[in-house]
């Protein structure tokens, strides 16, 4: 997935109102945005993550590491 598309779609999944997000944007997961991220990762990367996998996610870069940076292209 192209990194620019990733950021745009992840912003919706996280239900963030910021104009744009990047690797260092902080992530505060609520119960609903957690569902959003689980669905986003399943749909786009065919990877099933659990709540425990997301517990350590503090910034977008942590999510990229969870998905695997090799799955994103510039």
């Amino acid at each position, binding site marked *: 997935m192209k990194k620019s598309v990733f950021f745009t779609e992840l912003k919706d999944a996280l239900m963030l109102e910021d104009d744009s997000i990047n690797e260092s944007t902080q992530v505060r*997961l*609520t*119960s*609903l945005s*957690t*569902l959003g991220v*689980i*669905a986003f990762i*399943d*749909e786009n990367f065919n990877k*099933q*993550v*659990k*709540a425990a996998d*997301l517990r350590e996610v503090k910034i977008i870069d942590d999510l990229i590491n969870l998905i695997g940076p090799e799955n994103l292209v510039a």
Partner: protein
Amino acid sequence: MGAKISCIEYYLPEQILDNNQLTDEFPEWDAAKINDKVGIKRRHVAAADETASDLGYKAATKILEGFDKTAIDFIILCTQSPDYFLPASACVLQDKLKLRNNIGALDINQGCSGFIYGLAISKGLINSNISKNVLLVTAETYSKHIHPKDKSNRSIFGDGAAATIVSFSETEQIHEFELGTDGSGMDNLIVKRGGFRNRHDPFEKDRYDESGNVLNDNNLFMNGPNIFSFTIEKVPPLVDSVLKKNGFDLNSIDYVIYHQANKYMLDYLRKKSKIPYEKYYQNMEETGNTVSSTLPIALKESLKKNIIKPGDKVLLAGFGVGYSWGATIIEI
């Protein structure tokens, strides 16, 4: 020869909890957001002295107004909020409904998959010539399990009951089932205390989760994200396998009804299974997630509104607490 669903009725308790009331109680909770994401505007809540079997009694009374009660030869009650540890609440219901004495009665402890399991057992009873007309009652009062300060679960779950009569039929109208269980998921939807493993503890201290919901092991706990992951993993293959087992594909099915858990989850599951929107029926706005009764309530509403019609093939799928899941295809 086979079995069919003859009729369905349901009952919802009088007291209503709407999203504005929830926002009044929890000002940080946005009513519009609840409706948008969860798909629920109102849910019904049983009175303090009203049990699941009381709700089941009312649903059953309604259905027996149009069905000869002497023809009922088995009663099954599916609930996780029984009146007593013993006797089975189905026995209490048999007496209250003045059903015959020479009939079978049993409770089944299942949640969101309970209607599917109830249908499977009913079909088995009929096809093995044990029964001709099974009264299947699904009744739940999760509100009594939920902590009053647990806004997430109070937003999702509603109380209610449904009564379904499954009868002998010259043709098979309840097709093959696909059932599944994974008890390793038990901790993700559980009332930990109150049984014999962990007795009720009035001194158990409240804890808070990251969304500010109060948790207490005497009350219902649900790990929503893990339940969501479980459904993503299990429900699409469940739909595929029940279609395959019955020799159907999605084109030969008129409607799909999922257990009405919450809109967000169901939208995603529908998309993942590539179920066309016009073949998909959703009904939770006015009732919330009534656990084992969501499927019969949705079926009844769709029939009442003439959306699902006689002759239609409907795929039903239930999934949740246990983990437990099941699906079948019925002909209306």
